[in-house]
């Protein structure tokens, strides 16, 4: 494959091809643009460093997606630890800053949906984003998250239920 002949060109191709998709994957997890930029760069550095180890029996995008998600979740865990003794949770802080974010591209309904998603546990949030926004198949999700399809279906079902409960008028 051309990555063996010209790894720099292969990497340049990957960045150009996937930077935008991976940006949105990470952005929906971290919400904040600056954090997303940081983690997107870290993800591509990991991809660059491990390009030789990439096994072609798994899909390239699935592999990159998994790296980006792992990096984002690790960052999220670290941030959450900083808020352990805080009056508000890290998710509440993100929720509050949502509409003030200059790069939030939605109306009040979109903001309410994002706040509902932020209330979900990490795994359910991830599964919901993959299925709802990225239209991923359960097979692909199972490969990325290393989880059974049944568990993913159940997780998505619970996530939708919780979100709809949150969106329902009081």
């Amino acid at each position, binding site marked *: 494959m051309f990555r063996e002949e010209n790894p720099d060109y292969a990497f340049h191709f990957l960045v150009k091809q996937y930077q*935008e998709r991976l940006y949105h994957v990470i952005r929906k997890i971290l919400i904040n643009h600056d954090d997303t930029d940081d983690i997107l*760069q870290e993800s591509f550095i990991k991809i660059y460093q491990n390009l030789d180890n990439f096994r072609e029996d798994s899909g390239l995008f699935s592999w990159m997606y998994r790296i980006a998600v792992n990096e984002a979740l690790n960052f999220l865990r670290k941030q959450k630890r900083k808020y352990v003794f805080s009056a508000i949770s890290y998710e509440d802080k993100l929720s509050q800053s949502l509409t003030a974010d200059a790069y939030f*591209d939605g109306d009040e309904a979109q903001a309410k949906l994002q706040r509902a998603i932020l209330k979900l546990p990490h795994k359910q949030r991830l599964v919901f984003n993959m299925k709802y926004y990225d239209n991923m198949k359960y097979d692909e999700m199972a490969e990325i998250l290393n989880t059974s399809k049944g568990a993913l279906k159940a997780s998505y079902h619970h996530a939708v239920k919780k979100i709809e409960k949150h969106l329902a008028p009081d």
Partner: protein
Amino acid sequence: MKKLDNIPKKEPFKAPDGYFDSFEDRLKTRIDAKKETQRTSLWQAVKPYFYFAAFFAAIVFLLKIGINQFTDKYNNESQNANIAQSESLYYEYEFISDDMIYDELTASVDSSDNELSDEAIAAYLSEEEIEYLLYE
């Protein structure tokens, strides 16, 4: 109808204008910086062990020099003692003249003991029945 279906499905976030155009350049800068940091951090990680090894080598070297000096000194002292002993023996021998050796050898034999009296000789010869020799 479900409430979720009423919300248009679209990417809720956008990136700043021109963000993706400059992303690769910033990424390359960061990768280069990271490589440099890794080189530095590798040296930083190895540095304490290097200094410890150098310190240990210096200690061993100094100990070796100390031991060599001690053993050299000890060997010299014992060698000097041997030389001194052999030299003193030489000087002792040097002061012994041939006359002294002769005197020493002759002194051990008392000459008076060697001079037998005529009576003693006569008695011995008569005992051996060869007293005729006395008159020859």
